């Protein structure tokens, strides 16, 4: 019973971070119909910025803030310098360019920082506090839940309650009409990339301390998990991304806890395939008009 509680809390905590990463994917997919396969690599780059700033100033939180600033800056660069020049005659073009970015970013990080694992300290203690003899939340879990909740809440407010959010949604759904109505569609696209890269950087900062450490490829597997989460939720739905993230976190935590850690990689593939084969567009996506 203790174990079940522990695995549930741990799964939800990890799932919350996967949800954030999935949310970043959904943000770009909704705006540009691109799955940003470089999301993980961009998050690692932001984490390395945090590492440098922390090493220079001695302050963890300054580093954290630097990562949250570096993420959007990188998103801005990627959209302006690369993604807006990609031809859209084939949906695969953007995917392939994103893969080129993955190679480039990991290589640059490897050249600048080396390919060794570096320690990535967590913001708070990760040992679980006992509650009536049962190990429950760790301070880090509380921090993760709080941060993710604030992020998701802020994004929801932005999209549903603000004028910018309305423009963002409008230019994603009907770019031509929005342009005619005076919306700066290309600006909105850029804003989408900047927002997503910021959210992705945050997810990276939360996830890397729970893994083996900082490494140019540190987010490879987490990216696949986050993609799975986004697909479970349907790439179109932010709420789906959050639910998908939590669900995937729970599944992986239970599989790892009861069947062994070596099985979790296989569980990711099985889960991804199972969801895609049942509902080709994810579980929570609204069905689009059927093609003949």
């Amino acid at each position, binding site marked *: 019973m203790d174990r079940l509680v522990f695995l549930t809390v741990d799964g939800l905590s990890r799932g919350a971070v996967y949800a954030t990463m999935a949310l970043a994917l959904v943000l770009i*997919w909704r705006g540009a119909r*691109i*799955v940003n*396969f470089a999301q993980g690599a961009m998050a690692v780059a932001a984490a390395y910025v945090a590492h440098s700033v922390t090493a220079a100033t001695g302050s963890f939180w300054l580093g954290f803030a630097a990562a949250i600033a570096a993420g959007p800056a990188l998103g801005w660069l990627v959209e302006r310098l*690369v993604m807006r*020049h*990609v*031809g859209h005659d*084939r*949906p*695969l*073009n953007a*995917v*392939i*360019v994103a*893969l*080129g*970015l*993955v*190679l*480039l*970013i*990991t*290589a*640059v990080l*490897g*050249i600048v920082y*080396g*390919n060794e694992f570096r320690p990535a300290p967590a913001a708070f203690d990760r040992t679980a506090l006992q509650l009536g003899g049962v190990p429950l939340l760790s301070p880090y879990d509380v921090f993760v839940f709080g941060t993710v909740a604030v992020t998701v809440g802020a994004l929801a407010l932005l999209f549903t309650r603000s004028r910018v959010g309305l423009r963002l949604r409008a230019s994603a759904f009907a770019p031509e009409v929005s342009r005619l109505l005076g919306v700066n569609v290309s600006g909105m696209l850029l804003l989408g990339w900047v927002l997503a890269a910021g959210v992705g950087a945050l997810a990276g900062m939360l996830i890397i301390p729970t893994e083996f450490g900082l490494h140019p*490829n540190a987010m*490879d*597997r987490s990216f*696949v998990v986050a*993609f*799975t989460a986004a*697909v479970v939720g349907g*790439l179109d739905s932010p709420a789906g991304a959050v639910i998908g993230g939590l669900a995937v976190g729970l599944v992986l935590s239970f599989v790892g806890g009861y069947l062994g850690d*070596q*099985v979790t*990689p*296989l569980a*990711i*593939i099985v889960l*991804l*395939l199972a969801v*895609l*084969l049942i509902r*080709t567009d994810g579980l929570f996506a609204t069905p689009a008009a059927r*093609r*003949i």
Partner: protein
Amino acid sequence: MRRYAATLGAAGALLGLTYLLPAFQNYQLATVAAYLCATAGLTVLTGQCGQLSLGHGALMATGAYTVALMQSAVGSLPLSLAAGVAVTTAAGAVIGLAAARLRGPYLAGVTLAVAVVVPGITTMFDDVLGGDQGRTFYLAPPPFGYDFPFERWQAWIALTAALLTMLLLGNLTASRYGRAFRAVRDDEVAARLCGIHVARTQILAFVVSAAAAGLGGGVLAVLALSVSPGAFSLTLSLFLVMAIVVGGLGSLAGAVWGAILLVALPDLTARVTEVFALPPALAQRLEGNLPLAVFGITLIVVMILAPGGIQGLVRRARSLLPPVPSVNRGR
């Protein structure tokens, strides 16, 4: 008929080349041939049928591990390679069944998961697969006596595999199946209206390309005489995609360019860094990472500026040349 003649001609030329080249260059030629099996298969799948796979590195690993296990158990190379192809074909059929229902980024995501996750399976069964260390195996010496260079023998094995792959895939893409691939790639709805079974066509493309990747992986194992998960990481899968895109999507000639690039680019960047006398720590960091960076930049630039790749440029250059007969008539 022309294709068989071309294959025979290429075989003769390459046979002569293996006698001219020194051992290390023979080894590199063999490596190009091993990659060519995989890039040719991926070209059929992605370039001709329009399905992007990021998991071909993992399929190569499947072939390589099968060959390693079979070499240790039975020791007959043709049998091992055949088993490698058979097992990878089966794996390709499983992924292909799923792939036929998935589109664009979804398929890329699933195959990405395969590429990231499969190397981890080696630690799951580390008593058989050897964990992170991998496995080494024995390859019988060439049947021409011990003074026959081993690298030349390896080159012969690899080139045979590559030529066979190119011939079979060339025949396939020129057949009605190849036309069905391209029809599915260009417009699925139109293809279906023409009576093409889209899902079956996509599964066929995946199975064929998986078999080629398995052969390539098996040959790569024969070249290294060992297999380990590190050799088949996500980076390899990304490199394969890079190779076919830069070589030129859609034509098997592009796959040849891509395979050559995969071997030549790291070698070239290594030589460039050798020219500048760099401090050893920096040189070590550059060694593994600079080719990655060059590949990444090349991929982005080619995709944006010259989506036809090298083969596209070759074709354009050829069309700029005046056709020979009309020049004569003009005078």
